[in-house]
């Protein structure tokens, strides 16, 4: 726990779309920021520091934190950029948490954004891999995910039909979220009949490309409850970013989730996450992860994820709803995606989630995924942590 306890007191998102030709990046950021300030009933003058991030090669702008100050409000304020690939959004949330917990800043504005329409996402992601060993043989993010799906299928005998059930869930949930990009229900058959992108992943198993921004305001315990009657307290954070060459990843088991979640739950006293958590916003870029990664998180024993999904336990109204927002499959502005997960859990805790509200949320988890099978994880709660 921090020296200062930290809570989310406001959130704002753009209405995420595949293309936003009417605004540039600075202007897109500004939309999310003004919505977060309005939500917290604060003005930019109340903000002590800004933590911002995206992925440089998706927009092709160097020193992009400096470039975007007109939109972020960074002029004559401290502004710092964090970036860790797909985990950027959750990395930002963790960064904002530490900035406030340190006591150095009372109110911090956290911004994640991306205009994926401006570049070739796959081309830009490929440059993440080692230029000498991996880049020439590995294209984009989907190949690694497909390898994970195959490895898990081989071990536990699930099929793409089981994964499709996850996609059906998230796409159904997205109908309730006015900010989601894709808000159309699909059937299991439609998922299975959609084009095969990279065996076993169908088009409707994966996330889209999105233009969008998300802003979150965190405040210290000295002012949080004055700003927001029911703030979302951050109980703890953990992450694992082990880079190895692609061949070294423990496919089908996601060690980063296992180790980060184990650490987080140990230090926050969570013994039975399945029973104690009320909601999860999982950074789940494709459907198979909805099975594999909740096992790694310790929600359900290894090999039992598919059965748990089919039981409806993770649907709205189930014992542990996952991705009430529709998740990443419905919307993926990459640098914002992890922060959207964090903001969505905050909305659930605050009771501001509208049609996607899960009743009585006391504890929730948000995650980020990216890099080379990396995981970030945050625990949120209605109660002020000890």
């Amino acid at each position, binding site marked *: *726990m*921090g*020296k*200062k306890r930290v809570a989310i007191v406001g959130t704002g998102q753009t209405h995420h779309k595949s293309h936003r030709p009417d605004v*540039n990046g600075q202007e897109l950021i500004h939309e999310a920021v003004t919505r977060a300030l309005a939500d917290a009933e604060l003005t930019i003058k109340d903000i002590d520091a800004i933590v911002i*991030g995206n*992925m*440089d*090669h998706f927009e*092709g*702008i*160097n*020193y992009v*934190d*400096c*470039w*975007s*100050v*007109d939109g972020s409000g*960074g*002029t*004559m*304020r*401290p*502004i*710092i*950029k*964090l*970036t*860790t*690939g797909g985990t950027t959004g959750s*990395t930002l949330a*963790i*960064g904002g*948490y*530490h*900035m406030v*917990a*340190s*006591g*150095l800043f009372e109110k911090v504005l956290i911004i994640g954004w991306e205009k994926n329409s401006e570049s070739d996402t796959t081309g*830009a*992601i*490929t*440059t*993440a891999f*080692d*230029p000498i060993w991996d880049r020439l043989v590995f294209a984009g993010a989907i190949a690694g995910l497909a390898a994970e799906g195959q490895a898990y299928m081989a071990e536990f005998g699930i099929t793409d039909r089981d994964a499709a059930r996850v996609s059906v869930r998230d796409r159904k949930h997205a109908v309730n979220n006015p900010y989601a990009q894709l808000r159309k229900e699909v059937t299991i058959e439609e998922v299975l009949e959609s084009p095969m992108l990279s065996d076993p992943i169908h088009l409707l198993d994966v996330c889209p490309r999105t233009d969008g921004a998300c802003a979150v305001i965190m405040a210290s315990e000295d002012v949080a409850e004055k700003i927001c009657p029911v703030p979302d307290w951050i109980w703890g*954070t*953990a*992450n*694992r*970013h*082990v*880079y*190895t060459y692609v061949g070294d990843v423990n496919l089908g088991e996601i060690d980063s989730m296992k*180790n980060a979640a184990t650490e987080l739950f140990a230090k926050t006293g969570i013994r039975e996450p399945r029973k104690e958590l009320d909601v999860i916003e999982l950074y789940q870029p494709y459907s198979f992860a909805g099975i594999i990664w909740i096992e790694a998180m310790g929600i359900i024993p290894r090999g039992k994820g598919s059965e748990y999904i089919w039981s409806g336990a993770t649907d709205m109204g189930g014992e542990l709803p996952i991705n009430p927002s529709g998740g990443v499959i419905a919307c993926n502005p990459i640098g914002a995606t992890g922060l959207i997960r964090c903001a969505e859990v905050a909305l659930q805790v605050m009771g501001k989630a509208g049609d996607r509200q899960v009743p009585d949320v006391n504890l929730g988890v948000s995650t980020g995924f*990216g*890099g*080379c099978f990396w995981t970030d994880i945050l625990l949120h709660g209605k109660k002020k942590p000890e």
Partner: protein
Amino acid sequence: MEKIAIIGMGMTKIEANKVSENFADMAWEAVNAALADAGMDIKDVSNLITTSNDFWDGRTISCMAVGDSSGAREKNCSCVEGDGTYGAFYAMARILSGSYPSTLVTGHTKGSESISSLITNAAFDPIYERSLGVDMITASAMQARAYMDKTGTTSEDLARVSVKNHGNAKNNPYAQLPMDLTVEDVLASEMIADPLHKLDCSPVSDGCCALILADEETAKKFCKKPIWVKGAAFCSDAYFLGDRDLAKPKSLVAAAKKAYAMAGITEPTRQIDLAEVYDAFTYQELMWAEGLGLAEYGKAKDRLKNGDFDISGTLPVNASGGLLSGHPVIAAGLYRMAEAVRQLRGEAGANQKDGAKTAVVQGLNGLCGQSHCVWVLGNE
């Protein structure tokens, strides 16, 4: 603020072209040097921050390349994109939060692997500016002209910065460009973009620097000569160059004011013993020294001429030789911090400022010093 210390530092030698080492190799060297310096094992470091830039590295998620060789495995970690001083700031915040007793912070760049003119051109607005062909050098040349016009600083004044810093580098084993120069040499060097000659500009460099920051208890456990953080702050100005008064470092003044308030510095010229500032170009040393309150506005040239900024002077500026003697971009501010640590420990050899107790260090982000990060360090 609770006490935070720098308890370990490791620098690779700054070189024009480290052809034998990739990013991970450089980080391995700097991190192990820092651990050895602190008397720590990697297991003793509770978390880490790497600092890098995707454009300079030619690589999306550039932190990927150095995580393993920096010891990130099974540790919480993060990546700051920007100058290393900002990485160090986040490292400090993570300790102050109470989450971690110590943080390892690294910064690396291999300028030799790319073309800096194109990399810095990409920092200009893609719609309004980039196609004009401006880059960091030409933009800085415009700032130099604006500053000289407003303050009466001359090309000879700028040249004196180059003479001093390249001379100081002669006693710094980590520096890339130790040189014996005269003012005439600088003025006779190639005019790249008026008023900046080649010897007014820092070189293209490769290097990695690592620091270990710790809370008071950890510092006392491991380190005989902890160097204490007295204050730290950062602040950004407007983005568009035409929105700013380029001749004045407004955001640096603001960051310094905050850092000095934390450190109880009311008279910087009297209370600060030495400065390590971001001299990417000669004029910047003078501008930033003024922004830090080490000279009145427009008067840094007089203090320089008077010898005040020499190692033997009252307030040495870039006794290490500064960035003019080696400029690995993202690591640059961390090198400045490490050089200040050497001074405050009394380990700077022939470049030692006798009895140095308090140092100010500055790093920056963006074009023409848009954003500045200021640190006040002390050995007491």
